[in-house]
């Protein structure tokens, strides 16, 4: 985690606040800061999204490319996550500084999306045993205002939901190699089924309590945390401990329960808003980074 310097007394103030369920910015332990999301901003991608959670600013672009299938899974496509912690976000990311965080986030996403029950990779299949779609999900962290796992995962889900996979027709030329034909119409694309796709929820343990959506200052006060992947059905798809501290079993399960509830609600709202945006159609005004 990119850590900010915080003095011992500031930490104490944060800690007592969490105990009292009144955090430094006035939130309760389970409150999330306002989130603003917009999709389809980057024209050269198959799908994209821009998400702002307080000061965390995330841009995600999805590119679909045709590639060879893997022998183990001939009917399925692939999802590849790549996180770029640019030095724009915080000077700590300069050089190789953001590398570990980037690995952690991309691996967490990969694990969260791994199960076929949350994201069916067969919707990316083209020609069994030969060609499939590979979705390259490029995540750019523009500003770092805490809680990156959650912000990134929501932006990823939004970007995937705006992704259109071009229609492909397979024509077999008299018994020889099959030929692929890509549709010319840019709007003639299939949407992905993201009804079960997860988002990540981070819960940090500060003192004896867990908080969601931590600010960078709160992140500096926490010793341990847990990141979990949750979908709208309330399934847990991935969990892992983050940070240098430890958990007691009870505390961990308590955190996971809270996280599931938050995750379901966030997922629900995100899906609703994305649907609302989708209904506005292609012609809706775009606000981009000035909003």
């Amino acid at each position, binding site marked *: 985690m990119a850590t900010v310097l915080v003095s011992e007394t500031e930490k104490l103030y944060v800690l007592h606040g969490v105990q009292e369920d009144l955090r430094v910015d006035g939130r309760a332990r389970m409150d999330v800061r306002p989130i603003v999301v917009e999709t389809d901003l980057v024209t050269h991608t198959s799908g994209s999204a821009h998400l702002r959670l307080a000061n965390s600013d995330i841009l995600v672009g999805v590119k679909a490319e045709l590639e060879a299938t893997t*022998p183990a899974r001939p009917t399925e496509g692939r999802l590849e996550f790549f996180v770029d912690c640019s030095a724009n976000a915080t000077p700590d990311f300069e050089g190789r500084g953001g590398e*570990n965080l980037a*690995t*952690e986030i*991309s*691996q967490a996403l990969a*694990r969260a999306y*791994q*199960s*076929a*029950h*949350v994201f*069916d990779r*067969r919707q990316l299949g083209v020609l069994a045993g030969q060609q499939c779609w590979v979705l390259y999900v490029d995540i750019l962290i523009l500003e770092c205002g805490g809680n990156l796992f959650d912000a990134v995962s929501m932006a990823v889900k939004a970007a995937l939901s705006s992704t259109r996979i071009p229609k492909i027709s397979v024509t077999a030329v008299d018994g020889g190699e099959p030929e692929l034909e890509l549709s010319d119409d840019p709007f003639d694309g299939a949407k992905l089924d993201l009804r079960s796709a997860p988002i990540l929820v981070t819960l940090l343990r500060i003192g004896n309590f867990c908080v969601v959506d931590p600010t960078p200052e709160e992140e500096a006060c926490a*010793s*341990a945390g*847990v990141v979990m992947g949750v979908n709208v059905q*309330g*399934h*847990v*798809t*991935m*969990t*892992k*401990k*983050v*940070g*240098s*501290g*430890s*958990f*007691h*079993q009870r505390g*961990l*399960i308590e955190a*996971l*329960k809270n996280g*599931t509830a938050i995750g379901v609600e966030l997922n629900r709202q995100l899906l609703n808003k994305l649907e609302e945006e989708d209904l506005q159609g292609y012609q809706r005004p775009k606000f981009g980074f000035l909003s």
Partner: protein
Amino acid sequence: MFSSSTSRNDPRRFTGPDGAYSYHDILTGSTPGPTPQPPKSSMNIRPLFLKTGLLSNAQGSAYVEQGQTKLLCSVFGPREIPRRSDFSLKGVLSVEFRSAPFAHPRHRISSAFEAQPTEKELSLVLEGALQAAVCLHLYPKSQIDVYVRVLEDDGSVLAAAITAAGLALANASIQMFDLVLGASLCRKNDLILVDPTLNEELGASEGCDLDSEGHASLLTIGYQPSLDQLVAYQHEGIITVDQIDQDVELLMKKCKGFLPNVQCCLLESLKIQTKSHRQHE
């Protein structure tokens, strides 16, 4: 000619011809792959073989054999933090988790010096676990390096690595709050496989197919037995929180189960050390 073709991107080692592939790829094509596991829960950890202090250069070392999974961990330090970095009153842990090129039964793992993303992730998980276990406040301005090498991967490597790292740190006389033990299990609905082999782990991730019934998941914990704390916790696959609760409970029990083995191993090496120390005197 012997392949002197050093590849363009890595002139510092010899690499084979492009397009080389493992013969296991064809094997699985012709014969039905790994024999399907009988749907029977297995609640036992495979035979454990533990040994500490077998490497003379490292401050501490441990060798763990868990079934066919074999790995080695060595600890160096505390030593001076090499590069100029921020002053820290706490010590710094640096963990590197790598697999030997021949560790995987099917594929050769590229020996490129750049670690694979999964290796990097496991390094970070291990680092997080050990940070919670080591009394880092006693080692200001210093760094403790922990290196793990998997010699053979037959599943549950992370769990074995956690146990090995705990042993190696204790062997290095690095102050710790508690020992750390690792354990993992694979769950497919009600079928539970404690300490899964590689095939069982793969079975779990294949169980993620829509065709197969139910959900599969893989859980690894790092556990401090006397403080009753979880220092590492990593899981993938669909599961409910209640199932996690049960599984964590079960794994903690398993950890307590093989705690005597770990203690015996350490005590044995303590006795040997004490004896040789006395002889010197």
